[in-house]
């Protein structure tokens, strides 16, 4: 009964249901935001497929005593990177800044995957990459990206503010979770449960959050949600004015 495969299968079902729901929901949205929503729906769909593959044991790479599911790794690399990029894009960050965010997150997830198969200094270096990368992401979000967000409307700045905090919190919890797995505090079943829950929150929760605030994205006066905006200087962070 308490098998990891069952957990993955259940998460696959959740993803599938969410995929159908988001797909239906996206038809009621305006075309201006539908493209972004389709990206989110695609991430949910990919997660559903990879969950099923993971449940079936397909694509699992074993190295010594450790193993890594390759479809799941690919799903994570895509999802975390794209979602982080989206959070930056909601602030109207430049393409380069968004690309930087995507690259850093991609590197973090890859380094974390590497810690499964390496030991010693390399493993420590990989962990440091994760931690430093997280700090860099936080720095970017709180610095230049937030300065860009100051030029947005209050509601959009709030949307970015919430999306950024959600991403940073979930990613931080993911790092903590990885450390917990690394020190063997969790067994495979609990690991699968928590990992699937975090992934569902990342994908379905994030997608639901953006779907629910589609009207805010649509209200962008410039009409260029993901367009590059001129960067601003540094400065302290203050909460946005308008609530969503």
């Amino acid at each position: 009964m308490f098998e990891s495969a069952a957990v993955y299968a259940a998460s696959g079902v959740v993803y599938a249901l969410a995929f159908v729901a988001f797909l239906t929901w996206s038809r009621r949205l305006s075309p201006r935001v539908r493209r972004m929503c389709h990206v989110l729906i695609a991430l949910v769909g990919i997660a559903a497929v990879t969950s099923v593959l993971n449940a079936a044991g397909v694509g699992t790479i074993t190295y010594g005593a450790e193993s890594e599911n390759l479809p799941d790794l690919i799903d994570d690399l895509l999802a975390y990177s794209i979602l982080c990029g989206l959070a930056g894009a909601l602030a109207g960050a430049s393409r380069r800044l968004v690309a930087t965010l995507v690259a850093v997150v991609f590197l973090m997830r890859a380094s974390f995957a590497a810690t499964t198969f390496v030991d010693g200094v390399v493993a420590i270096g990989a962990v440091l990459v994760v931690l430093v990368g997280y700090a860099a992401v936080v720095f970017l979000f709180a610095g230049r990206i937030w300065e860009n967000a100051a030029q947005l409307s209050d509601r959009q700045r709030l949307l970015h503010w919430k999306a950024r905090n959600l991403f940073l919190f979930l990613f931080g919890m993911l790092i903590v979770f990885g450390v917990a797995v690394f020190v063997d505090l969790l067994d495979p079943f609990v690991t699968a449960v928590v990992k699937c829950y975090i992934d569902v929150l990342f994908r379905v929760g994030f997608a639901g959050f953006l779907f629910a605030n589609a009207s805010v994205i649509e209200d962008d006066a410039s009409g260029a949600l993901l367009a590059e905006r001129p960067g601003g200087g540094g400065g302290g962070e203050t909460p946005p004015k308008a609530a969503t």
Partner: protein
Amino acid sequence: MRLESTIGEKYSLRVGTAIGLTLVTTLAFGVLLTAYAAAAATGTVPALVGTLFVLTLNMGLLGIVLGGNVAVEFRELIDAAESIEDGDLEATADSNRRDEIGQLAATLDSMRRSLKEALDESERAKREAEAARSDAESARERAEAARAESERRNERLLEHADEIGTAMTTAASGDFRRRLSTDADIDAIDRIAEGYNEMTRDLSETIDELAAFAADVEETSEAVANDATAVEELNESLAADIRALADDVVSQADQLEATVAETSDLSATIEEVASTTDEVAGRTVEATEIGDEGAERVEAAVDTVRSVEDAIDDLATLIDELDDRMAAVESTTELVDDIADQTNLLALNANVEAARANEAGSGFAVVANEVKALSEESQTAIDDIGSIIADARAEVDDVTAEMATTRERIEAGVDTVTDAGETIQDLTETVDEVDAAMEDIARATDNGAAATEEVASTVQSVGEAATDVADRSHDLADAADETAKTMGEVRSRAEDLVDRTNDLRDTLETFETRDTTASHEPAGAVGVNDV
């Protein structure tokens, strides 16, 4: 329901949904991992860590959602407050929250509206003040022009005012004969002049009327004073008479009270007599009954005496017969005495014969001695009997004589008793007559007592009525005194009115009035009409 309503009052639907979802999710994972820990031997620590992880995750997400909203709400409130501070009273911080933040937003918005209203009010007041200032400026200019015109008119006014002042001074001294011209071309002056002329004419008429009225008042007041004096004296006399009458009535009331007391005593005495009469009548009845009984007893006594008389007659007869018998016994005794003498002789003879017979005759001699003794005893007894009979006959004689005396007395007693019976009968008849008379007296005294009581009651009523009349007479006398006093005051006031009317007439005589019989008088004309 209470918890649900409390949550509903405190949180919005979105916040409530987020909290509920977090709670349900955490519980679901908790149940799952607890079941896993129970099933797996080494799954306790991982399940506990997993549960804590999920809990932390959910709390963090909830904090991000709610905390972000709270921070945003506060930021909005701060921005709105800063905007209001900068003078932007259109800045609002609307919130659909039902908690303290929502209340704070509502309060801030209410404060903003109040400030806006106050500012609007201030702006409106400022505009009104500016408009008033502008009006004041134009008014000042008009006032300057008016002042110049006013100065010109003022000079003319002064001239006319001087004229009017002179007229007024003249009028103030009591001279109403002056008239003012009404062609000054100044409407106010003309109206004042017309008013003055009209006033002096009216005052002249009024003073004339007042003088006539004062004369009437003086005359009337004097008449009133005289009448009041007469009424006062009359009331004083009336009060004295009424008071004397009241005293007489009081005296009569006292006498009536005494009469009532005496009548009451008389009534009591009559009632006492009636009571005594009733008692005497009762005693008379008793006497009548006793008389009847006495008569009956007299008759019985007569009958008894007569029966005693008859018995005495019978006794006399018997005594006669006894006397006869005693005589017969005496004769018989004499016979027995003879027989005893013969027996004694016979015994003597027998002794003699026995002595001759010696011894053969000794027995016989004993019998002869016995017979002799018996004969001697019989002789003795007969002597005694004779003596007794003699005594008895003597006593019978005495009895017979006594009986004769007794019969005489009885006859006398019968006569006496008969006389007594007749006397008692007469007495009884007399008592009956007295009884009838007593009944008549009792009825008469009862009637007399009732009549006396009625008289006493009537006299008492008359006495009370007299007392009331006396009291009312006193009141009437007091009222008459009061009336006299009032009339005295009326007289005093009428006299005072006469004095004042005299003063008024003296005052009015100081005025010199205009002759108002002429309909049109020329300006400045003086018509003397001394009062």
